[in-house]
């Protein structure tokens, strides 16, 4: 690939709060210029609305600051996840909180929302959040259920269409071979989470792109507190290139499509990283809890003027 500029990647689904600064450094080193951190559950259910408020505030506050220190552009999606929608007393309070957060800077979607167990309570708060997304004119990021996935994915699209929400403004995430055709046929963006070892692996993704092409398809790592790989997007890109997928298609699936989908929020554009100042932790952020005492600050030279 001599003569071609290095590839850039965008990971539209990472739960950075659960990751270390090593991950930020590794992602930046391997060409990931930006990421989206959707609100989700934390591995165990919260019991107080205040826990949600502080979590949402950290997504638009300290976590964004932490990412920027490593040269990573950080965006977020705000929503009540489907698992915790089942605690209705708490869910009501969280729904009251959401308007405080959905209009904030770099909130690119209401999400991740949808179904988990596919209960009535999940549907109730899914519908309420579709209406919220319409009210504030934001795209939606859909979490499809891990169990009974195909039916849950179809039901998700039925509910969205029931509210007249445009499929072009919805990303359906965690697809697999069983769901992708319906999702694409109905006009939605189809995202695939690359899970190491299980579910979607890099190799399976190559076959999906061979079969369905690169239109409205993109991949993410969904790296979180479980076994996951924050480098899933660049690694899969390299596997795709090795297997003969054209570079233009790889770029769509690992960069352009996700940006096109979420830039509909008006809160994300390539200019954010193209015009970003080179990382200079000395002048911008020295002394935060991220840069520990004695650590050498990182200073990037801006070699392209």
């Amino acid at each position, binding site marked *: 690939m001599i003569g071609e500029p290095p590839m850039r990647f965008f990971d539209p689904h990472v739960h950075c709060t659960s990751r270390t600064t090593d991950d930020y450094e590794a992602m930046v080193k391997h060409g990931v210029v930006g990421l989206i951190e959707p609100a989700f559950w934390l591995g165990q259910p919260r019991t107080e609305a205040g826990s949600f*408020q502080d979590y949402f505030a950290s997504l638009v506050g300290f976590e964004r600051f932490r990412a920027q220190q490593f040269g990573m552009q950080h965006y977020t999606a705000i929503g009540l996840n489907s698992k915790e929608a089942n605690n209705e007393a708490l869910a009501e309070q969280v729904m009251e909180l959401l308007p405080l957060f959905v209009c904030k800077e770099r909130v690119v979607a209401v999400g991740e929302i949808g179904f988990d167990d596919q209960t009535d309570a999940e549907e109730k708060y899914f519908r309420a959040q579709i209406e919220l997304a319409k009210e504030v004119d934001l795209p939606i990021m859909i979490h499809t259920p891990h169990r009974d996935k195909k039916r849950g994915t179809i039901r998700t699209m039925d509910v969205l269409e029931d509210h007249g929400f445009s499929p072009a403004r919805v990303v359906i995430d965690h697809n697999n071979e069983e769901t992708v055709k319906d999702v694409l046929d109905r006009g939605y963006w189809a995202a695939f989470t690359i899970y190491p070892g299980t579910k979607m692996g890099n190799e399976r993704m190559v076959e999906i792109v061979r079969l369905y092409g690169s239109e409205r398809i993109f991949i993410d790592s969904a790296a979180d507190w479980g076994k996951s790989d924050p480098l899933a997007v660049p690694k899969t890109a390299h596997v795709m290139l090795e297997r003969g997928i054209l570079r233009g298609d790889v770029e769509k699936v690992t960069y352009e499509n996700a940006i096109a989908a979420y830039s509909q929020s008006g809160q994300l554009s390539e200019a954010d990283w193209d015009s970003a100042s080179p990382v200079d932790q000395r002048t911008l952020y020295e002394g935060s809890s991220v840069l520990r005492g004695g650590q050498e600050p990182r200073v990037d030279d801006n070699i392209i003027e």
Partner: protein
Amino acid sequence: MSEETETPRAKQVALLRTVLQNRIAPDALAWIDAARAKVAVADEPRTLYMAFSAAGRRTGKEPLKPTPDERAAAGAGRADWDLSSWTVDQAARVLLLLELRAESGDALTARLDPLFQSADLGELQALCKSLPLLPFPEAHRARCADIVRTNITSVFEAVAHENPYPTEQLDEGAWNQMVLKALFIGVKLYPIQGIDERANPELARILCDYAHERWAAGRKISPELWRCVGPFADDGMLADLERAVSDDDGPGALGALLALKTCPHDGAAPLREAAPLPAGLLADGDWKHLGDLQ
């Protein structure tokens, strides 16, 4: 001119609105005016919270870069009010906050607390810059003391730099922590209003202890650290200044030399004579020049 237009609040609102009018599109200004009207009469919090967030999407984030006339008008609208580091979204958001009507400090902070608690980085900066303009100034002391505990440099600077609120309202303990925290997170001291007036013996002791920690760790010391030490130096602190002059190569030594000029201790004069300030490099009280050397 009616009586209403002569109140400080009316002057501040008029200035911010004029400043915005000259910088943002007419439809964005119309949106802000409509949002202000709604906030003024809203009896529920949601109107303010949504408008406060959305304002940034309407205005963009360009720096105001105030003209000399605008800077003068700010000073006339509120003593020591400094617009130099403000951005358009901050001006719009503060205009919204100035529509809040409250009968007591507690009632006002009850409206503001959820904004602080849910703010993103840009909103927090606007809230920090609103502090000197809000009514019931003493009601926001605890909030200000809390903000200066942040590690987020941009937010810290929004409250600490070019802002008259901390020097007017923080008690000595909170003030001293703010100055120490500034050094700790690499934030400059010279843009802090009242940095000389609020210096005190306890702060001088804290800063010298901090200098010893840095020396022990083999780390550089900000030349600005010595600024708040000079006027209160006791025997031990004078020895620290002497050590900084002889040990530190570069700005640290210059900071200690500059501090010696304000040091009333009998032992300061011989030190000043032994190591005079380099001619032409530092004028009297030129801490800004020194701060920028770092």
